[in-house]
């Protein structure tokens, strides 16, 4: 699985969405995820990818989150 696929899996499980409904450009706002959902999600990503993620205000899309994961 690619990193993007792993990330999509986490988000789909969190939001109980069908796999394949997300693109890198999907925003968290569209998914109706608030700031605490993002904290939950980054915690899941930290476990999955073994990284430590610092949330910042520019985090808007799935691609942004992937960048943060790869930055670590």
């Amino acid at each position, binding site marked *: 699985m690619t990193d993007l696929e792993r990330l999509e899996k986490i988000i789909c499980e969190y939001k109980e969405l069908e796999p394949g409904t997300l693109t890198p450009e999907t925003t968290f706002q569209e998914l109706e995820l608030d700031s*605490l959902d993002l904290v939950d999600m980054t915690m899941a990503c930290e476990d999955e990818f073994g990284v430590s993620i610092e949330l910042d205000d520019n985090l808007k899309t799935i691609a942004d989150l992937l960048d943060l994961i790869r930055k670590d």
Partner: protein
Amino acid sequence: MSFRILGTGSALPQCVKTNDDLAQILDTSDQWIRTRTGICRRHVMTTETVTDLAAEASRKALEQAGIVPEELGWILCPTVGGDYITPGLSATLQAALGAHCPAMDINAACSGFLFALDAAEGIFARKKARYVLIAAAEGLSRIMDWEDRSTCVLFGDGAGAVVLGEGESLLSLHLETKGCPEPLHGCFPGGNSPWLSVKPENHFVHMDGQEVYKFAVSTICSGIETILQETGVSPEEIRHVILHQANLRIIDAARKKLPIPGDRYRLCIQETGNLSAASIPVLLDFCRRDQLLKPGDLMILCGFGAGFTSGTALVRWEP
């Protein structure tokens, strides 16, 4: 030898403030507070003292246990602060109750009730007392910045107490402290020392909410997983999970990750907000009052807070 819980009690101040009430004095809304925290209202002190609340909760717990204050061998008060910097709440409570035993405060922030259970276990093991009162009481509204919407909406005032007698109800207990004050702290009020050259921060509570949120969710999960593993108790056997009531979102996040059935998590945060050390005994008392607790029921108590501190216990309800 550990202990048995013989009685519980709680007390909340008269004055109730809803989210809409707070929206009158702050740039906030019922919608924001409800969705981010689950809190609908909280009780705040007006004329009551922390000692008054602790005494009311204690009297109820003593009455239920069938014990008079003179019979107490120890009083332990988990709190971040009573009515004075010194003496401690334990001393003012002892006077209010008319008890004669030794009494001390325990400041382990919101985990304080678990730390007090550990101390009580030691007192019983050393046969120093037949009855121990743990009275957790907080007046957090006094140390909130009521102009900081990101902290003040979260907390409330109140007290919860338990009376313990000899027994074997404590099946496992784990405590942890990871010293790291920055994400959550309140400062000592500045005095007028002419030599103090570092100007103290104001004495309000300061918090990095997301940092604390992450700590809370991960420490609840690791604490409870450790206890389940160590005792071999299966998740289905746990009848009640009594978590420190800090934020419903923290509880929900932990509930999603843990194997214990979701309907076992008890709540009072909607009505009380975060009561720091008092929240676990207050919720325990509400559960007893609502007749949710049946003899033999296994329950997990889990607290976490500034320090960072955390504590998790497996207790059998056998009043």
